[in-house]
């Protein structure tokens, strides 16, 4: 399992500053694709159609840079769903018209709208005949996109940005050992519930108690963030020693209802997504840029080597970046252990 690499990172990257996540697969890529690059020189560019959720991010930059460095000629057409996945079918009309060599999707909603769930894909509605790569899908199996990460069995493959729970717990323990872990999550988000369960399963093995509290739902069943500060307070009163921010879309949107209160109450916070690194004391994340390179590596295998996407595993990065938010550390008067500074990145403002 990719996540189990965290402790090696701690040892292996001592003194090298931030954890570098590219190397492990770039080395492999160089070996596998070298002959193909030669062949690619006088080819006409491959056409790649990108559909993102909220416009271009570091993932797309990493994707483009990788292909450029590898000398893979590509022509990229980019469309954003503008935070509204219901716009995807309209974009797919354009995809069919362009007939690209590869379709690229960003995030679970856009990916599901483009390729459909496993077993439910409809050639009329979804893209099935063009190879696809997806990224930023937090639970490729859990969301029903594929049934097995080793092989999708479909014309798609891709990457997930989620760091597995175990290295996350270990990162928190390394900073400040704890016995009670607090979580605030959105009960209507399937991903969030799945991760709460996964963390819960580690309680005995890793020696902590999980205290997970959902956002209350209003009369129409929508989550309500107004009670955020009270939830944090209740966790502190119950003795929680860390507050863990899940990859939870609603929580991310309403992080201001939660994070400042935690800092005020001197409760250390931890995030597993890059988006929240400025709100949490400590983050263990997949770098978006590195993730983009990993997707590009898979795209290269499909375009240049002609490998079938079903034969390329769905993966997460094997190395993660540990980020310490020094202003929060100062605010809650909880500095990191000295040794952690030799392998973590530090945000100073």
């Amino acid at each position, binding site marked *: 399992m990719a996540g189990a690499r965290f402790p090696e990172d701690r040892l292996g990257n001592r*003194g090298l500053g931030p954890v570098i996540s590219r190397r492990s697969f770039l080395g492999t890529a160089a070996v596998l694709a070298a002959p193909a690059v030669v062949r690619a020189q006088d080819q006409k560019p491959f056409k790649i159609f990108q559909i993102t959720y909220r416009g271009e991010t570091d993932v797309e930059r990493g994707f483009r840079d990788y292909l450029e460095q590898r000398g893979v000629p590509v022509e990229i057409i980019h469309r954003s769903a503008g935070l509204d996945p219901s716009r995807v079918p309209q974009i797919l009309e354009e995809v069919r018209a362009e007939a690209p060599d590869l379709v690229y999707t960003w995030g679970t909603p856009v990916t599901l709208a483009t390729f459909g769930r496993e077993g439910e894909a409809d050639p009329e509605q979804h893209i099935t005949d063009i190879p696809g790569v997806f990224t930023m899908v937090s639970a490729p199996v859990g969301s029903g996109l594929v049934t097995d990460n080793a092989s999708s069995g479909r014309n798609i493959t891709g990457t997930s940005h989620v760091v597995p729970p175990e290295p996350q717990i270990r990162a928190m323990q390394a900073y400040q050992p704890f016995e009670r872990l607090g979580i605030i999550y959105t009960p209507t988000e399937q991903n969030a519930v799945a991760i709460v369960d996964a963390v819960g399963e580690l309680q005995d093995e890793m020696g902590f108690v999980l205290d997970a509290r959902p956002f209350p739902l209003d009369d129409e069943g929508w989550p309500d963030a107004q009670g955020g500060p009270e939830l944090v307070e209740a966790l502190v009163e119950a003795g929680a020693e860390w507050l863990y921010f899940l990859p939870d879309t609603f929580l991310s949107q309403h992080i201001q209802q939660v994070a400042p209160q935690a800092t005020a109450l001197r409760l250390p916070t931890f995030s597993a997504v890059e988006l929240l690194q400025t709100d949490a004391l400590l983050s263990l994340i997949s770098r978006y840029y590195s993730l983009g390179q990993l997707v590009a590596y898979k795209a290269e295998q499909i375009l240049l080597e002609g490998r079938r996407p079903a034969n390329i595993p769905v993966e997460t990065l094997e190395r993660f970046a540990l980020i310490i938010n*020094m202003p929060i550390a*100062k605010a809650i008067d909880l*500095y*990191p*252990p*000295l*040794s952690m*500074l*030799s392998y973590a990145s*530090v945000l*100073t403002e």
Partner: protein
Amino acid sequence: MNALRRFDVAIAAMALAVLVAGLAGISWHTVRSAETVLVPALDRKAQSVARSVAGLSALAVGYGIPVAQFVRAEEVLRESLDDNQDFAFAAILDVDGTVFAEVTREATGGYATAEADGITISTATIQTADEVHGSVVIGTPRTVAERLVRDVWIDVAILLLVAVLIAFELTAFAFTLPSAQLLRGLTQRLHALRRGDMRPHPQMATAGPMGAEIEAADAEINRVRAEHQALQAAADGCGDAGVQRDLKTLSRTHRLQETRDSPPVSLAAVRAPVFLFFFAEEMTRPFLPAFIANRADPDIGLSVELIVALPIIVFMAIVAISQPFLNGLSERVGRARSLRTGALIAAFGFLGTGFAETVADITAFRALTAVGLAVVFVSAQGFVVDRTGAGQRARGIGIFVSAIMAAMLCGPPIGGIVADRLGDMAAFTVSAGIAVVAYVCAWVALPRGEVARESGARAVRVSDIFRVLARPVMLALLVGTAMPAKMLLIGVCFYFIPLVLAQGFEPAAIGRVLMLYGLAMLIIVPAVSRWSDQARLRMPFVVMGNLASALALLHLYIWPEPWGAALLVLQIGIAQGVSTTPQSALVGEIGRRVLPDLSEGGIYGVFRLVERLGTAVGPLFVGLIWTLLSADAALAAMAAVITLGALGFALAWWRAPVSLKTGSATAGSVQ
């Protein structure tokens, strides 16, 4: 004979003097440069670690963490101490020089008492662009430098000793080469003539001008002897008493009617290949157990201790059981050829072991090595036996046994040093290479032609075993003293000790411990064998030797390692050196008395077989009890077996008929 020896000694002494002088010079230079290189290197290492910790501290300060608020700084300090066993303490001081965080090793004091404790301090300041915030200090005891230099001295001394021994072997080997043999033959003749010694010399193949000189000398000696004989016959014919008396005097002073009784020079040729070959095997002693342990897979349901014992048991069992069978085979194939083949088989075994990845592979390749070793041993022994009569056999066997003992002394420390510097895989490759050199050596030196065996020691029969062991005294002697002695040697000295020491010491140190056995044997055996020739001392020597070797186990509980192990190995070497010669003599003497109709060869065959079985049983015995109970229990059981065996033999001897003892006493005093 004296002339011959004087010539050898003169040449050897000259070669050795040159060698020792050169080596001593190099050694002195090595140690001097070690002092000038090692000590500053130690300081540089401490400096660099201190700078690295100070750099990390400066980084933390740069992020806004004051030195006084560093979190778990001890972790970082502990890690630098764990990575560098030479450091006594590591500390972070604040800007006023007071200790903020400190980690010390158990045995040593900290920063505060550094000066009094004789600890050298290396300092690095914690500094950001314009400000000093504190410092990091690392303490290195001055004894570390002294210890490093001492280690170099020990290594150099051992290399010197081994180089001298190897030089001896090579000088002896050189004398077996044809041209050297001619030179030696001529010297021998000239010396004899100068003393007026007119005995004929053993015939030798001659060639070239030196050969012509030898032939001329021999012809002259023969002419003088023939003329003396003719004169004698003439004097006898005419009955001239005065002339007869003069001729008799001449014959006595010039030994005109005597013959020489010296073993053939060619026997020495077997020494160098045997030495080199056993040197290759002995090299593996210090690191083999740990080498197996590193590849042991505990999933197969055996403890690591037993898994490690497995290849050793298989090796010893093959060596023990295959010898009687191989003896006949090597005789048919030819001693020289089978010796060479054995060396090549073992070379493959060494090479394969080095590259083995599982214990199954190791066992297979060690088994191959065992076959090779058994073949070499049997062939070398057969080579000597074939070429010696009963009178010279003991000295002939002595030639090759002392070669094995020298290898036991030289092999372990050199193997340990090679494994230390190049790794154990490389050490196995070196062993394979030396086995190949032994092959070449045998190819160059051993005569192609085979000689008829003078007296054949036939293979051991199963019925012999039962007949010998049915006699209580023989049973007590063989199973009670000979077998436990070998169990102790292999089970404790060559299996238990290297495995336990490997947890805290480098192979070189283990090799130094194991060489003490060879050293004790090499020194004690010749000294004691003369002493123990007095027959009435034999029984007490055997019993006391075995009891002393059991007591040696106590050293492990008295002294800190590696001294306990070193004293144990040394004491076992001395104790077995005391008991081994009388034990072997007793086997023949008692055997002749209680089993008059069984040949001496048969009795010794059973003795060697029982003894070698002990080498296989030893590691199994220790490994099993170690696994089932504990290491202490295994050692206690080993001590019990030896003690009970020795006392059992004393009892059997005491109860044996008086004729047996007086008989052997007579036999002993006759010698």
